[in-house]
């Protein structure tokens, strides 16, 4: 039998490091602690642990010592297992299977898994320690290894150290400002001085003091439970303090000097609420876990996108997996519970072929890519949610902090069987609050603040979590049944801040709650009160149930084998009241908890950055430039990676990530038909263009919105019902010693928000949900790496009939048209980066693509979608990185056919601008002969240029008037485009 697991390791070592090892063999190990004897386990090993057709099992002995299986001793052996406390999903499943066979295994039975690799024929110079390092992440796993002649490594259980419950500590806040800040920094509270002083003042209030005395709490000082709870609730993560800040903004170009009271309220919330007044389909915006729109009379749709950047930097696999399953829970926690039906994943990484230095403690970008991809793959696939759209963007600066954006779309019946509207939560005082799903453990304590820690091999496993998609899937099945049975009055997920946030936020509905931490089921004994309250352990929902529905709710939990524990009650006392068994450990006024945080005051100052002008060489071979551009990671095919996502589970994906003759051309947007048997559709798309921030973050934001809309237009979206999500990832924009250029970075944020508002209003795209991650920097001083300010704009919208759509692959007999205009906009373009990196040009400066008249763009988008919806256009592709040259090349690749186009046309752009420029608002369209007249009539009055024809044969020819500029063979383009990010080391 072939050892595929071992072969994969062997191929990966070749692909990433150029190391050829003769043979890698793998052994799967299970460490069992139970009341069943080894002999009994051995007699049933082939029923649970090994597949008798393809595997050999051994109990209490090592395969490696079996001369029949290993006639020759391997050169090196590496065994990898999880560190104690880290989620071991296979171990959990194995224990479940073990109990099926041995129901009498005992309450304390445990199963852990490990993997052993045996290496034969290891080349000289490869150290076993290095090898082990490539195969595990020291933060969550431990590795043991041996060389030939040494004893084989054997993994054993670490002894459990018992620890007892201790009452909460009291924190004296009547101290100097200096000591207040020391408390904040050392306690990882991430609160600034003004916030600490606000808390200090709260405990000096005589009314507060007398109320506390009555409850038996320390009168004039917070318990550690209260302080941690406030720190979580008031964190940047939960309160978006930068977006809520008062900003003094100066523009040195225009002389503007203004005050802005909250970027969020001014540029996101206000426009959306104004649009909400104009339409009837915006059901719920901003206040829930995701925004909800009415899709038709029967169904509503919701969408949310999240980032999981810091966790993914530390443990790419676990960080990304918790990212995806976490955003799935945002959907499940929307209204009274929505069902996730599609994921989108957008990643920003350092270049996978990075050869330069790597700062301390950072993984190589290729390893980050592999890990993040694997985490999202497992999280999405195992949950049965298709990944329908996404992108991978590369830039050197993402080495410091990768960006991992995970988005999910959900569907809900607008009315539940009992007549309630599904998007409205309606708990009452007296409802019971259940914690459903996973248990609470040390994993995920201080998740929101750990990124400021220096991480080492010895860092606690609490910093990182690994998702458990199967526990979550069981919970999801159960909750949707409970919803339809009318058993849920309120639901939210447990993410950042754990129970303190989830119950604390829901308690606003009834104005109070009482939580008993003593009831919360734990993974390990010994967690203190505050740890239980704020732990971000995964796979948990908080659900409110009327008392009369309790038996039915608990019966459903039993059926699905989901743990559901009554941990709290809603009250109307105005207090967030926490007890631990008999003792009151916290009591905070709901109002102070949610609205007590003082507003930040920040300074912003804009001065345009100086970039050396992009001066293209006077002579160039554009055919060879095209081949080079097709291999650029930002342009190259991501097929190897994306194909490993299930993109069509649920049987609804009508435009998939892969289109065309050989099903490998790029899909512009995802198109779904979520109701089986119906053609009513939903479009999902994304826009992201971080490098434009090098010239102007405002242009970057405009480009992101336009790209998302453009991609959706390519599917024939219904432009009268589209909604957007703004997802900002920024470097720290608060001026300080660490961040001397904070004013500039904040000015970039101001400009991005202004453009976001302008374009969203023009296109009528309300932003219905959003997210920001504002500390994406690595290191300090001269070595500091800050990410380019990045806005991901995600869009979902209605589609009348999924049969009437387009894909990017050219079809035989089509004529080609360009919708939109090419301008001289080469600043921060992909070609400018390529040629300045290679030294063929000076820099990337110049005019960045902008949208001066978005209303005009919308007119042409409307005309084009009308043509698509009438079935006369079956081919469309948006022009983005690499401009028209790359767009037409991709269309030839999808169609496996040639094309002849002429880029000479109206406008002032020169050849470089028309060929490689990335002007916004442009879409290449293919139209069959018989539909030409109707198409031209539909597009009348819009900027439209005839470009050329699809040709028989296998050559892409691009002309500039009479000059043949590009002549490229399609097969060669396919190899160039598909080769550079393959990274598999060969398939067979």
């Amino acid at each position, binding site marked *: 039998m072939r050892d595929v697991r071992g072969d994969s390791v062997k191929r990966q070592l070749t692909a990433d490091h150029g190391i050829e090892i003769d043979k890698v063999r793998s052994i799967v190990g299970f460490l069992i602690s139970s009341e069943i004897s080894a002999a009994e386990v051995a007699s049933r090993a082939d029923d649970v642990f090994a597949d008798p057709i393809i595997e050999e099992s051994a109990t209490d002995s090592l395969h490696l010592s079996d001369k029949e299986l290993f006639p020759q001793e391997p050169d090196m052996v590496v065994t990898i297992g999880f560190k104690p406390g880290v989620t071991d999903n296979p171990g959990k499943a194995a224990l479940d299977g073990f109990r099926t066979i041995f129901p009498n295994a005992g309450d304390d039975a445990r199963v852990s898994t490990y993997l052993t690799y045996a290496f034969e024929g290891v080349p000289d110079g490869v150290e076993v320690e290095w090898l082990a390092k490539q195969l595990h992440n020291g933060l969550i796993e431990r590795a043991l290894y041996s060389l030939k002649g040494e004893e084989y490594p054997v993994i054993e259980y670490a002894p459990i150290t018992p620890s007892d419950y201790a009452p909460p500590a009291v924190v004296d806040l009547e101290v100097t400002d200096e000591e207040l800040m020391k408390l904040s920094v050392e306690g990882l509270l991430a609160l600034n001085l003004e916030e600490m002083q606000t808390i200090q003042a709260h405990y000096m209030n005589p009314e507060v003091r007398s109320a506390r005395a009555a409850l038996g709490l320390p009168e004039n000082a917070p318990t550690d439970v209260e302080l941690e709870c406030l720190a979580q609730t008031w964190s940047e993560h939960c309160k978006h303090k930068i977006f809520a800040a008062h900003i003094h903004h100066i523009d040195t170009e225009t002389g503007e000097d203004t005050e802005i009271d909250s970027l969020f309220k001014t540029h996101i919330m206000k426009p959306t609420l104004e649009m909400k007044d104009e339409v009837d389909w915006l059901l719920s915006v901003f206040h829930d876990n995701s925004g909800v729109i009415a899709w038709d009379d029967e169904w509503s749709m919701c969408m949310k996108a999240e980032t999981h950047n810091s966790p993914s930097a530390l443990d790419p696999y676990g960080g990304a997996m918790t990212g995806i399953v976490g955003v799935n829970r945002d959907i499940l926690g929307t209204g009274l519970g929505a069902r996730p039906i599609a994921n989108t994943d957008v990643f920003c990484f350092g270049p996978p072929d990075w050869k330069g230095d790597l700062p301390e403690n950072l993984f190589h970008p290729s390893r980050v890519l592999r890990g993040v991809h694997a985490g999202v793959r497992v999280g999405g696939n195992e949950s049965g949610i298709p990944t329908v759209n996404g992108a991978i963007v590369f830039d050197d600066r993402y080495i410091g902090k990768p960006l991992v954006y995970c988005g999910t779309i959900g569907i809900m019946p607008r009315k539940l069987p009992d007549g309630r509207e599904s998007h409205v939560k309606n708990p009452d005082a007296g409802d019971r609050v259940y914690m459903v799903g996973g248990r609470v453990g040390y994993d995920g304590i201080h998740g929101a603040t750990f990124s400021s820690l220096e991480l080492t091999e010895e860092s606690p496993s609490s910093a990182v979590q690994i998702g458990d998609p199967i526990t979550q899937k069981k919970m999801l099945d159960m909750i949707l049944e409970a919803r339809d049975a009318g058993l849920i009055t309120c639901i939210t997920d447990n993410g950042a801040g754990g129970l303190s946030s989830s119950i604390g936020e829901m308690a606003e509905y009834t104005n109070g709650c009482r939580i008993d931490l003593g009831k919360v089921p734990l993974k390990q004994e010994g967690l203190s009160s505050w740890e239980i309250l704020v732990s971000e352990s995964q796979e948990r929902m908080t659900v409110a149930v009327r008392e009369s529905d309790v038996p039915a709710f608990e019966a459903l939990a039993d059926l699905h084998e989901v743990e559901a524990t009554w941990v709290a009650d809603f009250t109307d006392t105005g207090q967030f009241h926490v007890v631990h068994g008999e003792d009151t450990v916290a009591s905070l006024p709901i109002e102070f908890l949610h609205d007590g945080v003082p507003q930040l005051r920040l300074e912003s100052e804009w001065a345009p950055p100086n970039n050396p002008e992009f001066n293209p060489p006077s002579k160039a071979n554009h055919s060879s430039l095209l081949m080079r551009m097709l291999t650029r990671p930002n342009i190259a095919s991501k097929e190897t990676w994306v194909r490993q996502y299930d993109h069509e589970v*649920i049987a609804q994906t009508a435009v998939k990530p892969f289109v065309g003759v050989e099903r490998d051309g790029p899909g512009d947007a995802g198109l779904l038909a979520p109701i089986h048997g119906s053609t009513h559709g939903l479009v999902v798309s994304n826009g992201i263009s971080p490098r434009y921030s090098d010239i102007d973050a405002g242009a970057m934001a405009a480009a992101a919105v336009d790209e998302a809309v453009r991609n959706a237009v390519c599917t024939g979206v219904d432009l009268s019902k589209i909604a957007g999500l703004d997802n900002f990832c920024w470097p720290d924009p608060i001026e300080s010693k660490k961040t001397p250029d904070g004013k500039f970075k904040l000015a970039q944020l101001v400009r991005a928000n202004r453009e976001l508002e302008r374009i969203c209003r023009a296109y009528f795209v309300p932003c219905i949900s959003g997210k920001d991650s504002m500390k994406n920097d690595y290191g300090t001083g001269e070595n500091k790496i800050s990410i380019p300010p990045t806005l991901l704009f995600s869009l979902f919208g209605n589609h009348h009939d999924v049969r009437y759509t387009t894909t990017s692959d050219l079809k035989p007999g089509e004529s080609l048209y360009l919708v939109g205009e090419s301008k001289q906009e080469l600043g921060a373009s992909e070609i400018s980066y390529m040629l300045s990196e290679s030294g063929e040009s000076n820099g990337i400066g110049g005019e960045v693509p902008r949208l001066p008249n978005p209303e005009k763009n919308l007119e042409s988008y409307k005309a084009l979608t009308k043509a698509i919806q009438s079935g006369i256009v079956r*081919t469309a592709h948006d022009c983005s990185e690499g401009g028209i040259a790359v767009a037409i090349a991709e269309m030839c690749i999808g169609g496996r056919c040639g094309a002849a186009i002429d880029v000479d046309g109206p406008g002032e752009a020169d050849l470089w601008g028309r060929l490689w420029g990335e002007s916004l608002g442009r879409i290449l369209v293919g139209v069959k002969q018989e539909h030409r007249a109707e198409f031209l009539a539909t597009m009348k009055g819009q900027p439209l240029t005839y470009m050329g024809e699809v040709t028989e044969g296998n050559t892409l020819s691009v002309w500039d008037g009479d000059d043949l500029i590009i002549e490229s063979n399609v097969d060669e383009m396919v190899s160039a485009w598909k080769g550079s990010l393959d990274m598999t080391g060969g*398939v067979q």
Partner: protein
Amino acid sequence: MGDVPKVAILFGFGINCDRETAAVFELAGAESERVHVNHFVNGERDLSEFHILAVPGGFSFGDHLGSGRLLGNRMRFAMREQLSSFVAAGKPIIGICNGFQVLVKTGLLPGREVPDFEQRASLTLNNSGRYEDRWVTLEFDPDSPCIWTKGITRIECPVRHGEGRFVMPSTTDLDELNENNQIVTRYVDPTSEPGKGITDETLPFPICPNGSIRNIAGICDPTGLVFGLMPHPEAAYATFLHPHHTRGEVSEEILAEGMQIFRNAVEYAQANL
């Protein structure tokens, strides 16, 4: 029975194609009900209430310890009698993807005339070492007793798996399957002439997406009532789900070739049960 056969669609524990599988049976004229595995295990429901059983795709128990093994064990140990009676009553069973893996690990496939719940084959890691979602071309053995595939020559539909390589301990085992026409469907080269694509020689990646011996994509039991396959015909139920649907004019017809497998079973139940 009446005109509308009742189909039990198993769900729970990480099965995740239950909704679309239920939908395609409904579109084929049956009445589907998604039933949690534990309803059968704890005796609240009984398989005898149904005419057809479907074990959908997914990641039951995360596929840890091998795909389909843990759900297979639950069924093998806790639903043994119900399953035996269901098969003895001549009622059709289908397992798709993870459901196929489950049926193989319970021993219902390739199986015996009378189920003995002995595992005889396995589905293991793809030769590529990767989970992949890609469309494949399938051809069917016209002489197979399989009631699910009557009249089908060739269809296209997606595979979405990491463990789809069909293996048996010896060549003799495979020969025996072949002689009984239990090798119902295989991956074929899409450029071959329809009806002539089937070959024993393993085709190259990605035509045979997983390195399966003799390009096996699906098998049935000796009665032809129990059928399992790795590819997802339910994901090809509609014309607009085919990756090439924009390459032609807009199709008025919505239902596509993937439906025939489900229609066959519904018609079989209507005629025989």
